[in-house]
């Protein structure tokens, strides 16, 4: 009897706090924002944008809003006035920043603080730089594309899976912003004929917009970051001395099977030196010339390697000229030459610009395809 009373007492007690389901949110009462955007007005005030899917038979499948607000949180308060349910940021998938915002707002990353500080917000949305005003993006309704959130997510996903753009989440951006030995990089988009991915925006240590990489350049960047997904393809031009053809267009296309990247660092003569060793194992997927790959495999491989090396060297030269290091050479420098790195860590971009990078590429054909 005593046990029963005890059990009853305890279960009654545990029922008590159930009345306090304060955190319950019904889906009907929530307006789930899927895309957030930040832009600036002519007089440099920040604007918050959002896109909320509409679950009804309405013609338009999503609701786009913009307000002028000092902070992201204030913006949410104002957006709440427009939405049917309570504004909810838990499901934000993409954060779009206008290029002007990134260029002209000093220290713009602090506007992202709400995502990190408030435990309710996700830190996994993809961050995108949009080349244009966000009005263009948010009020753009392509007849061929699904609603804005789905379109953005799909485009970033597919492009980054082909390594043609980067896949920078908010957390990844936070890591890069707080990393002395690497500079941040974001996906860049624009609307030309239709919405499209342009490539990768490069930012400096402070988050200022510096330059951009095209999609082919991004592929090279991802390889150097040891972050290239699946296989990537290159179309390379063979020298006519090898192919013996007179035509200018002696192209060979290869798809990589495996890429081995080795980066060594050294410090000599007052600057850092990096040795990048890339070993490609690739299959030939296309060949326009009459080059016999069985007889000239070595020559063709060497020619491909040379072409690739030129591409990588051009990319690295561009990065050094702009004094940005999205590859993260500084991380290697810190790991292996800590004392030297400490002297330049306040401005690694500058030190990287002065360092010397040597690239060695070797290519091996794993498969020459199903025709001779």
């Amino acid at each position, binding site marked *: 009897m005593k046990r029963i009373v005890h059990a009853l007492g*305890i279960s009654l*007690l*545990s029922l*008590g*706090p159930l009345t*306090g*389901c*304060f*955190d319950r949110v019904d889906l009907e009462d929530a307006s789930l924002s899927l895309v957030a955007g930040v832009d600036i007005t002519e007089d440099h005030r920040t604007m918050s944008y959002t896109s909320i899917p509409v679950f009804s038979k309405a013609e338009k499948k999503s609701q786009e809003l913009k307000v002028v607000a000092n902070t992201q949180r204030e913006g949410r308060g104002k957006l709440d006035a427009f939405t049917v349910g309570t504004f909810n940021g*838990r*499901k934000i998938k993409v954060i779009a920043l206008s290029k002007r915002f990134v260029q002209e707002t000093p220290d713009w990353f602090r506007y992202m603080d709400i995502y*990190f500080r408030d*435990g*309710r917000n*996700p*830190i*996994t949305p993809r961050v995108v730089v949009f080349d244009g005003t966000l009005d263009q993006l948010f009020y753009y309704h392509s007849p061929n594309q699904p609603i804005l959130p789905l379109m953005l997510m799909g485009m970033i996903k597919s492009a980054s899976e082909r390594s043609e753009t980067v896949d920078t*989440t908010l*957390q*990844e951006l*936070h*890591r*890069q*912003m*707080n*990393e*002395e030995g*690497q500079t941040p990089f974001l996906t860049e988009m624009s609307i030309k004929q239709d919405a499209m991915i342009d490539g990768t925006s490069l930012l400096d240590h402070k988050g200022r917009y510096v330059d951009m990489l095209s999609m082919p350049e991004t592929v090279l960047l991802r390889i150097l970051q040891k972050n290239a997904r699946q296989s990537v393809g290159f179309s390379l031009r063979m020298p006519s001395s090898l192919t013996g053809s007179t035509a200018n267009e002696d192209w060979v296309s290869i798809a990589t099977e495996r890429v081995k990247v080795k980066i060594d660092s050294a410090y000599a003569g007052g600057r850092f030196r990096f040795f990048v060793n890339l070993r490609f194992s690739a299959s030939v997927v296309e060949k326009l010339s009459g080059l016999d790959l069985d007889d000239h495999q070595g020559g063709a491989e060497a020619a491909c390697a040379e072409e690739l090396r030129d591409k990588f060297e051009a990319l690295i030269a561009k990065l050094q000229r702009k004094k940005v290091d999205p590859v993260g050479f500084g*991380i*290697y420098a*810190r*790991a*292996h030459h*800590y004392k030297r790195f400490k002297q330049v860590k306040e401005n690694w971009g500058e030190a990287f610009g002065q360092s010397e990078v040597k690239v060695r590429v070797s290519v091996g054909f794993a498969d020459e395809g199903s025709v001779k």
Partner: protein
Amino acid sequence: MKKYAFNEITTMQFIFIISGIAISYGFIEIPQVLYNGAGNSGWITLIFGSLTTTAANLVIVQVMKKMPDGTILELLAKYAGKWVGRAAAIVLSAYFLYFAYGGIVYSTRVIKARILQETPAYMTLIMLLIPAYVVARGGIRIVGRYAEVSMGLSLWIPLVFMVVWGHTHWLYLLPVLPEGWRPVLTAVPSTFFYFLGFGATAFLYPFLKNKEKAALGVCCSQLITLLAYLFITLLSFAFFSPGEITKINQLSIYMLKAVELPFLEQVEGLFIVLYLFIFSMSWIPLFLLSSFCMSWLAGRADHRIFLRILLAGTAVFSYFYVPSFNVTYEMGDWLAKFGMAIEYAAPVLLLGYLLLYDAIRGRRRLS
């Protein structure tokens, strides 16, 4: 006379109680503490901290060998007098209560910050007290079984952290010892706080079924604690860039926020909820030990009446005041100081005293 024979615990239960108390919120906090103290070589500090703790814990076992059938309180009463035993009971009871309160407030704060933002903190805390009562009223054996269950149910934790693997940068662990040995060694005492709880050995010892395995049990439980800490520390050092690691609170939970699974959102929320099993190890055994000391002081065999008073008191007090995160951390600093005195320094002194006592008495008997 085997006073505690009816309530025996196995070696396994002993291991899990000791490491459970230690790991609880150390698992969430220790990477940052280590990084602040010793940079990316903090994991070496951790090994030193663990070795020191194992030594201190073995000292307690040595002390308790003098009194196989009684707790530390009976031992003190026998060797140093009744009043010393009573004073120790009061001090230890207060210490365990403070420990338990710190643990439950910390967990409440984490839940409040990450999952139940709108729910009043006192309500979360009271909800946590109910299972605490259900378990702790059963006595040490039930707590031992609970420790076994909660550790067993938490074996998935390393697996879920494996999802983070794709975001790691192992070069962050280099260079080893960038600033030399000095910061690594000076940071060792800051880790002691996260090993606290092994003082419970002094109370669990008489309940142990196989007392000869106590030393082995101590080594095992400290090894489990060390491995858990090493795992999370190395993972967070590789996950966070050196600049951001000092800027984020509760690294272990934050790391899981970066995980994207196709079938589950807010992995960290689910993690916290299930991790409550381990969190609860920082208050359930300690509420029990605190009430145990009180009942010893009052000379009663039943600890439940005191447990009820303690838990009801905590519930009522929490209705009026739940400490903020910063106060929780300050409480932790104080607990670290008390804990170092009570669990690290006191046993060594006591062992010295006992050896001296035996030596003098032995000589008297000879002469």
